């Protein structure tokens, strides 16, 4: 598998590390401690057998976190973008 790093170009899998589902949203911490929303964020995943958005880190490259859209059965990579959205 290869990923098209938006900064470095197409690179082999060995340069990247994986983090997981990129659709989960970190709840706002209002100081109330753990809640169902937090447990969801940290632990629960859709884990669909289809198209998946996921975080990858270009560890041996530019250190960018990427959002990769990839199919879980074919491993086809449909899109790669930088995770960071600058204000």
């Amino acid at each position, binding site marked *: *598998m*290869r990923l098209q790093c938006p900064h470095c170009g*197409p690179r*082999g899998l060995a340069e990247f*590390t994986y*983090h997981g589902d990129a659709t989960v949203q*970190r*709840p*706002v*911490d209002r*100081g*109330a*401690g*753990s*809640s169902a929303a*937090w*447990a969801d*964020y*940290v632990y629960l995943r859709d884990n669909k057998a289809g198209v998946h958005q996921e*975080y990858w*880190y270009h*560890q041996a490259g530019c*250190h*960018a*976190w990427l959002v990769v859209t990839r199919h879980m*059965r*074919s*491993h*086809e*990579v449909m899109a790669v973008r*930088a*995770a*960071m*959205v*600058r*204000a």
Partner: protein
Amino acid sequence: MSGRRLATGGLIDRARPVDFSFDGKAYQGFAGDTLASALLANGVRLFGRSFKYHRPRGVLSDGVEEPNALVEWRDGARREANTRATVAEIFPGLAARSQNRFPSLKFDLLSVNNALAPLFAAGFYYKTFMWPASFWERVYEPLIRRAAGLGRNAGLADPDAYEAVNLFCDVLVIGGGKAGIAEAMAAARAGGRVLLCDERAGLGGQALSDGEAVDNGALAALPNLRIMNRTTVFGVYDGGVYGAVTRLTDHLPVHEAAGPRQRYCRIMATRAVLASGAIERPMVFAHNDRPGVMLAGAVRAYIHRYAVAPGARAVLFLNHDEAARTIPSMAGAGMAIAAVVDGRAASGAAVHDAAKAVGAPVFAGAAVTRALGRMGVTGAEIRGADGGMFRVACDIIAVSGGWNPALHLTSHLDGKPVWDDKIAAFIPGSLPPGMVVAGAAAGAGINEGIIPLWHVPSRPETSFVDFQNDVTVKDLTLAQQEGFGATEHVKRYTTLGMATDQGKTGNVNALGIMAGGCAMMGTTRFRPPYTPVAIGALAGAHRGMRFRPVRLTPTHGWAEAQGAMFTDAGLWKRAQYFPQGGEDWREAMVREVSAVRQSVGICDVTTLGKIDIQGPDAVAFLEFVYANGWRNLAVGRARYGLMLREDGFVMDDGTCARLGEWHFLMTTTTANAARVMQHLEFCHQVLRSDLDVRFASVTEAWAQVALAGPRARDVLARLVDDDADVSNEALPYMGVRAVRLRQGVPARVFRLSFSGELAYEIAVPARFGADLPAWLMASGADFGITPYGTEALGVMRIEKGHPAGAELNGQTTAHDLGLGRLLSKAKDYVGRAMSQRPALCDPARPGLVGLQPLDGVSPLRAGSHMLRPGAPANAAHDEGYVTSAAFSPTLGHPIALALLAGGVARQGETIRVYDPVRDGDALALVVNPVFYDPTGSRLRG
């Protein structure tokens, strides 16, 4: 004696005779011979013994699909098991041996299995060997293991080297037969970068085996085409990545083999053309495994490629037109053709014409029912169209049941081959992205006029489907009878297709037999590699000392010169201790600790992760990633920082110094440096991109040395420029300053202490790191300044009760480590919410305590568990475990840190330290984990 070398022809180099041996006997062949062709030329028919029944076996094929003629290749540490004689090229001095036989190939004791074959039907072992239970490991299994297996691994380290390369191309052409050559030519002329890989020594493929001339001269003129011979593309992977191996020196004697043995290639190809040809199917009849039964295409290959007539008198058994080419080939080689047996009721003109031309009788609608002869074919039993049986004398039965496209690579990414009734073969189904298939691999031009003949029944039924694993038609029938009819069940129950050839000749016949005239079932899934690949090749250079890189600190050379012993810390080498005059590690450690506690010592701490953080929002960022607060840290000061994972457990700790208003330097533990960097990037790029902050790892940019001990300030004062004030007032505990050393080198001084003494960490740009220890040693010579290693460092941190790797094990919370007070209540930070879950705040959780032996001498060891004295030693009474332990030279007795249920509240209790795996059992007193200077007066002094 059966085969012989023809006087003329072939692609061998008759000017270069090659002497070699097989089973200790000397033979001669020619350059260009495989072991199979050379032995056949010498009249050898018996090559090996089969896996289960130890039946005598010869050569079936001329290619990678060979199930029978497997040998041990070379000697000593280079001995290689299961090498296919049909593709291995001979060289002068080669020693090859037959395998899976005892005491000799001709007389094999275990061929008794053949007589017991009825007992050893498919799956018999699942039904027996159950009593008594203890006999499985002691009796049955060793017997089975010894009988099974094929060749012997050398059992010695592989002495050869391997290398790996990355190759990029626009078009990868797999297979250098006629189709592959044409595809490569067309692709190269179109202008892209083209790679043409072929598994043999030269291009030409099946055409050469059929005696055709192949013109590939034009290829050489194309500069954008690279031909890689002896290269097998073994697998297809995601994203247009192909795995290949080039055999560089396997065909050479050791003394000529300069450089690596094999080269592993990762090929990145935009497009690929699979032109891998086809593999011929044997016929399934009684004793079809006898030496002398050979694929018709192989017979032609031995004649045309190697100028070897594999026999003197042949029977040809076929069911399609193309195999008729074998008739003129054999006749041209001077072989008599005793009979052409065509399984089809109406034999095609191709067969008739060819047979007529050489005067060979044709029996249409007939079948070979049995091979006669035991150690080799002596005749064929034939059933005529009228049902009448007769026998014909012969020493070769050339068989062709049609061809199977070599479509293996098309299914590596899940593509399912589909059955084509017209050519009675599986053809490629859906293809890997970017791949097309050409020539026979796509089913083109094969199996003209075929009428499938999957099996010729006979009694008793001794017809082999998978030769190497000795799977017979009876086994298939039994599997079906017992409910193992699904393709994968047959495979697993009978071991069909699981041998070194992975069913290349047997699987489709088996499916045909199982279908019994009904629609063909799907194939089992083809998996990489296409042909077996040496594990050494896939590992490349990463073995022995080169298994993983070595990271050296700038002071490494200096430490080496001091006679340091080194230890591994991740990839780093760190000085473990500096023995003097025959000291062992413990004596050295005691001396080094005492020197630091009493005077002064130095220790390289470069390996700690260092991350430079800058930006207007740097403080806000630290607030987010650390559990404790950062808002009030003054410039020129450092602070201990505790980092949690989002699940609330401790991730890492370290210090972070404020070098400027917007500028911080964070340190991490050595082990977690990369992980923390990645985590910070995640926190910033994904979670808090609103913060204006940047950071970079500067671990290798700075050499850092700890200077510790009561005399540390005196040494430091001599090290720095005269005008640099390093007094307690100017540089207090946790103070940070940029200074200039007397040598004119810029440096940073951090007043941090891991040892618990007055201590500094001095950082200089890495290029000065090699000199820094010597400067320090010179500055402290009259204080007896002493280099210390990680042993002493570790002991002093245990004396101080600092958590380190063994405590920061990913299973502990801030409360567990006695750091709960650091958790800020005033801000959002990573891990805050989840650190408040009930289980993480349970007061019964194990907490960090100190231990010291009641008797003052019993050693305590990390990894010991703790029990209440008098309680039974079982899991119900397990109260925790010892995380770190050492002999404390400062206190004069062993000490330990432990995670004990209930934690510090249990100070003063006696606990049993239980270590049955090392026969340890001692009583210890639970004490404060800070053994040394609990008020911290020394480090502040």
